[in-house]
């Protein structure tokens, strides 16, 4: 079995699977259950100042379901912990004492005044927790009070608060970022400038999961009205992966440790985040859907995959996909693929045909010699992957690279050389050869 142990900015854990700051980490009872189940660490649900906040007494969660009620997307309007600060601190201290090998990070959110941060940092240090995470991401409720994403949306505030924390505590500082911005690199750069040891992302996305068409109000509906909530779960993973990659490959933040968050449900999701540079991953929705036991599959799956690939430690693959994330203009325009339908696997549903015919390039037949038959017309196929995406049979349609001959669509010979948009003749801003 591969070694899954993790050392993330000095915080050690037996595996990279942490529970994110959220309801599953709100109290000792849950966290102990999580550790018993095998989780490598937790980020304790965000602490604030007393008096403790209050939550709504109506529904806090909304969901997007698949047809068989599989949970695809999830949102919430819950606030930070609604338990007294002292109770949380006492429990954190006890759990850390009882579970010394697990990562114990404490999420914090107090008003943007230096003294407020100094006060809470001292109290958290007393718990012997391994580190803190600054909650600059919560998009509802707390943001209306000038905290959470209200801070995360202003890079100057991020830098300022991060600097205070680095100045006033010995604990490592992780800055949790909100995705509700236009360019994730800016808040990450600000965190780094403030001295952050790491960033974690993404927090939840502003969302209305659905509208109750009888009540004419957003779900979840509380006495006839609803507010936007934070969206998470499998549906947000692609957004999170991109933001993680943007930070990992930005020259200004390259190498800044990242804890990846956003729809992590399986070992494979975790491996993908880690390939894009995440040193650990944080999980919430999957645990809230299935319970803590899912970590067993994550541990086994990641370990089996590492064994299969010959990785003996997670360092060997963390960030390995980052160099291959590039800008569109760097993509090889001489790379030509054509879709190919495996006629033995084809079940003749015709979805590839109608998708291509109605919405794309008219490159798939519906009929051949009077028979229902779906075949790619190479002279029309641009290799777009739409047919592959809509085909219900896995691996029935594949994209095959043309390595020689003439592309029947363009009539141009296949060029084995790499060439991108920056030098393309149609690009008015192309890089000219000196001779031109």
């Amino acid at each position, binding site marked *: 079995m591969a070694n899954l142990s993790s050392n993330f900015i000095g915080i050690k854990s037996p595996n990279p699977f942490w529970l994110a700051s959220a309801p599953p980490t709100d109290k000792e009872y849950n966290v102990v259950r999580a550790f018993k189940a095998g989780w490598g660490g937790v980020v304790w649900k965000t602490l604030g100042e007393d008096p403790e906040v209050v939550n709504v007494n109506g529904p806090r969660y909304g969901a997007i379901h698949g047809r068989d009620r599989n949970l695809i997307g999830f949102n919430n309007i819950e606030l930070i912990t609604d338990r007294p600060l002292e109770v949380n601190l006492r429990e954190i201290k006890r759990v850390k004492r009882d579970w010394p090998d697990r990562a114990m990070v404490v999420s914090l959110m107090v008003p943007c005044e230096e003294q407020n941060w100094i006060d809470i940092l001292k109290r958290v240090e007393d718990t012997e927790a391994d580190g803190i995470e600054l909650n600059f991401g919560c998009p509802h409720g707390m943001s209306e009070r000038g905290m959470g994403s209200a801070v995360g949306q202003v890079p100057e505030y991020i830098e300022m608060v991060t600097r205070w924390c680095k100045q006033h505590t010995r604990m490592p500082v992780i800055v949790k970022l909100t995705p509700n911005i236009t360019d994730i690199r800016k808040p990450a750069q600000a965190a780094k400038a403030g001295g952050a040891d790491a960033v974690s992302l993404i927090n939840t996305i502003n969302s209305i999961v659905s509208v109750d068409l009888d009540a004419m109000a957003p779900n979840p509906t509380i006495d006839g009205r609803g507010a936007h909530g934070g969206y998470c779960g499998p549906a947000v993973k692609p957004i999170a992966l991109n933001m993680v990659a943007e930070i990992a490959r930005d020259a200004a933040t390259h190498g800044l440790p990242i804890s990846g968050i956003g729809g992590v449900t399986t070992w494979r999701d975790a491996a993908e985040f880690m390939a894009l540079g995440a040193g650990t991953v944080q999980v919430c929705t999957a645990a809230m859907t299935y319970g803590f036991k899912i970590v067993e599959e994550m541990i086994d799956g990641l370990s089996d995959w590492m064994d299969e690939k010959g990785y003996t430690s997670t360092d060997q693959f963390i960030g390995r996909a980052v160099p291959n994330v590039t800008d569109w203009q760097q993509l090889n325009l001489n790379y030509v693929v054509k879709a190919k339908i495996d006629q033995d696997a084809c079940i003749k549903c015709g*979805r590839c045909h109608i998708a291509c015919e109605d919405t794309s390039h008219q490159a798939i037949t519906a009929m051949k010699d009077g028979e229902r038959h779906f075949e790619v017309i190479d002279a029309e196929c641009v290799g777009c992957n739409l047919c592959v995406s809509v085909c219900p049979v896995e691996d029935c349609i594949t994209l095959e690279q043309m390595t020689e001959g003439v592309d029947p669509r363009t009539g141009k010979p296949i060029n084995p050389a790499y060439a991108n948009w920056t030098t393309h003749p149609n690009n008015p801003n192309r890089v000219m050869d000196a001779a031109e």
Partner: protein
Amino acid sequence: MADALSAPDIRSGRLTPEDYLENFDDLHPPLGAHEASVEADRCYFCYDAPCTIACPTSIDIPKFIRQISTGNPVGSARTIFAENILGGMCARVCPTETLCEEACVRNLAEDKPVQIGLLQRHATDIYLSQTERHPFERAPETGRKVAVVGGGPAGLACAHALARRGHAVTIFDARDKIGGLNEFGIAAYKSTDDFAQFETEFVLSIGGIVVECGKALGRDIALADLRRDFDAVFLGMGLAGVNALRTDGEDLAGVIDAVAYIAELRQAEELSALPVGRKVVVIGGGMTAIDIAVQIKRLGAEEVTIAYRRDREAMKASAYEQELALTDGVVIREWLQPKRLLGEAGHVTGIELERTAEDDAGRLSGTGETMTLQADQVFKAIGQSFVADPLGAGDVPALEGGRIRVDGDRRTSLADVWAGGDCVAGGEDLTVAAVEDGKVAAAAIHAALSA
């Protein structure tokens, strides 16, 4: 062997009241809302969907399934009724395993088609139980009149489509209520809760249709009179004749026409009142053979054997129907043809069967080897035939292979007479095919009356 035969054991009330309820309950319990939602999600929404092509009435199956999937079962039912006003019954009785579900592309992927029949039933059940309103509006009266002979699936579909277009329709039916085989022929466990009559009332609720029961063609009404009094005539009278075994002993008591027995069963107030033999032999290989075998078994017969002259592959009853019978404990014996019915004191006691064989050309012949099965009842289910006499003499529709000849529009050799359902040549003897006949004929009649 003959002395081994015992006196006939025929009794009613072989079972407890609970048994009857259970045995004649819905063959396929309807899908719950969640089941339907999950099943609907399995539909790939195929291009030029093979299921729709396979449906004799061309129901837009991907569309109606998608409407279930999006929480619009009432709209889904409207999609179904637009092509097949008897979509509720067809959802129950269609041999979907040889029609839409056989064509489902999921068979290629996993041998498990989308359960189209059950989804169709889900949508139509919701419509019929929750909506008072008829799904379609009748066009303004045209003043034209059409006579429909026979209130079975073909006649009902034709009448509905004509009434919808504003024509005045009169349905004549020989029996005391309309519905045809839906009412008198379908196996009881496929049409529970008097669904046939319920659906008939739904069809008639379009308006503009008058029903005259107890009016048999050739007895109470004449084709010539109908042609004189109406602008067009549609014949959908089904098959009145039953094929005979043509063996000795066919007139013995206990030798029963399966079609008549099923009609009696369908109309029975109390199933426990029906006479049921302890040992039963069914002769035939079609749907009627399966239907009588399964139902008589479910009425309490101990041993039920279907004897068929060829092998199971050649049976007209689908593999699915055969499985149903086998599951119920019916024995299917192949390569046997009736030779002689045995009896004592005027009552059948058994049947002598001859083993058959097929030559290279596929011709069947007896081998001379015989065997005897004891039987308290022998059911004849070897097919029905069209009885042409009621059409009258003189100017009557031409026949083909013993049934009425029609063209693609279901028009007979007479310009003002159309026909459909089991009484026409080349038919498939299916409810859904009869509905399509009625629908096509109605369109042609409308075109002719509008010309």
